[in-house]
């Protein structure tokens, strides 16, 4: 996994021009496929560069090597009925990133096994951003078609996404960090909006994570914070992300988050 994270981080650092996930690992290596599942949407983060600011890897499509590889990973490690929320989110995030960043050539998309409890169905015709469900508990994990669940203003989404509004800030920050791979342009706008409504709480989570020397959590929370409006300037977020990356002692997943935060900023500070 460190190799894949390193590869993504290098691509983000360098602009992503020659990035190819498939070049980072052997396709039949189950460990490599597992790494893709764990890193989730981030394995395709370099493709988002092209959408964000020009650049990014030369176009690959869903049918290309990277698309095939991701489909293998999705098929090899579908979240089971008793999967953790994070596993389900990560799965969905990776599936959505494939749709978002590797354009479909008009085929039926990937043919991986549908997971129990609501995997994304690329053929159902809905915009990818609206088919996400970030529920905290399995019983809240709606079918793939849950209507706009991460929008607090949407009554239909109130049950599944109560945590976005109500979770105490330490828990909110922990969850947000676990979902940091979804902090890519256009990938989960409703989630981003829900978190942006709790910027101060996320900022407190960043403080707590750094104090605990939980560099991975801090970097993940920081990724959401760089996109949020009204980040308190006394947080010192930019210096904090540099600090976290250097203090982590070269952890490639921390580096990936830190570089992604630099590549995909947004919002502003006050």
């Amino acid at each position, binding site marked *: 996994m460190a190799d894949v994270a390193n590869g993504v981080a290098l691509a983000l650092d360098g602009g992503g021009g020659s990035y190819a996930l498939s070049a980072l690992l052997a396709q039949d290596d189950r460990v490599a496929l597992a790494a893709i599942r764990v890193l989730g949407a981030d394995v395709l983060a370099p493709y988002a560069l092209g959408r964000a600011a020009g650049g990014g890897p030369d176009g690959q499509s869903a049918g290309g090597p990277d698309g095939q590889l991701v489909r293998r990973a999705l098929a090899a490690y579908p979240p089971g009925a008793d999967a953790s929320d994070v596993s389900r989110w990560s799965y969905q995030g990776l599936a959505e990133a494939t749709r978002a960043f590797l354009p479909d050539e008009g085929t039926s998309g990937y043919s991986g096994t549908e997971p129990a409890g609501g995997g994304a169905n690329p053929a159902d015709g809905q915009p990818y951003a609206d088919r996400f469900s970030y529920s905290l508990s399995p019983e809240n994990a709606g079918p793939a078609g849950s209507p706009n669940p991460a929008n607090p203003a949407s009554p239909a989404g109130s049950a599944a996404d109560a945590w976005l509004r109500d979770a*105490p*800030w330490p828990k909110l920050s*922990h969850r947000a960090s676990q979902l940091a791979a979804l902090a890519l342009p256009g990938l989960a706008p409703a989630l981003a909006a829900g978190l942006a409504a*709790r910027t101060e*709480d996320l900022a*407190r989570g960043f*403080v*707590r994570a750094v104090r605990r020397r939980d560099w991975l959590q801090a970097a993940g929370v920081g990724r959401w914070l760089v996109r949020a409006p009204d980040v308190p300037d*006394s947080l*010192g977020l930019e210096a904090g992300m540099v600090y976290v990356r250097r203090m982590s002692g070269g952890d490639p997943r921390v580096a990936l988050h830190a570089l992604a935060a630099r590549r995909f900023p947004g919002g502003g500070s006050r």
Partner: protein
Amino acid sequence: MSRGRSAGSRAAPPADTALLDDVAAGALRWLDAMRPHFRLPADVTTDADPNLTLKPLGELAELAQVIHTLHPLAPLRDAAAELFAFAWKETRDGELFAELVRGEPVATYPVELYGVFARVGLRHPGAEELIEATTALRRWRVAREDHTRTLGVLNAELRIGLPPHADAADVLAHTGLGMRSEPWALDRKAAYGITHDVFHLTDWGRAPGRLPDRLADYLRLWLPAWTVSWAEERLWDLVGEFLAVAACLPGAPYDAAGWAEFAAARGAGDAVPESGEPPGPDATPGERFTACYHSTLVAAFAATLARAAVGRSGAGGPAPTSIAGAARGGGPAAMTTLTGSEKSP
């Protein structure tokens, strides 16, 4: 994370006054019972370790005076007044300070301690003559390593009526609070620095309006994170100091989970351990005193500021249920016990 913490930046819950009164009353009871350990030894100005003698007594005087001034309940105010009078008596009506200044003419602590009493008119002419002579020196104005401490010296000068030896705003600007340190970069020492920046600046919570808005907002933002973070480390005196600082902010945001956790850290006799668990049954009274005196004083102080803020802001009030208070026999019952334990002067 198993804590039932509210969603942070939303409206603060009302203060649990029963819990606050239970914490303050219990702490004062324990402190009163510990009077023998606050007494100064005969060698206080020579061989004794000031950290075990003058420091505890000075803290007792400082915080008891605040409680006497600010607590809305008369029995608690009275108990605090007696502790304050006890501390003054231990200084032999101020003669101690003359001896301390003669021994260490440029040390700041005798002046800081004397200021606690001079503030309310308890003065000693001999000590004051010496202090006027030493604090007029250029030597007194040499910058100190610790700007937080300098804020304390400035407050003492104000209390005694001496000219300030430095510009308070300038000194504040160089502290951890004035600098608005990155909130994630605080270590333990820096955290104590920030709480004491607030205490010196606000005259220990008596003048919360002296906190500039910009710094109050900084504290409002980050206190919740610090309180949780140091509660996880079980450093209870610092948690108590953060709760006290919160009570100095506009609107005095009440941290219900922080208070519940702090109150639950109390051990036998309502003493609050400085860190970790309360002293075990084998601990000697002296060991209990050392382990708990500071944090228990902070508990009484913080509970007083939070309680006084309820009246100040017009907000708050008893929570519908107070399990901690009820289980501990808090509220009026606790005060009766406290009053009953007080001896007539």
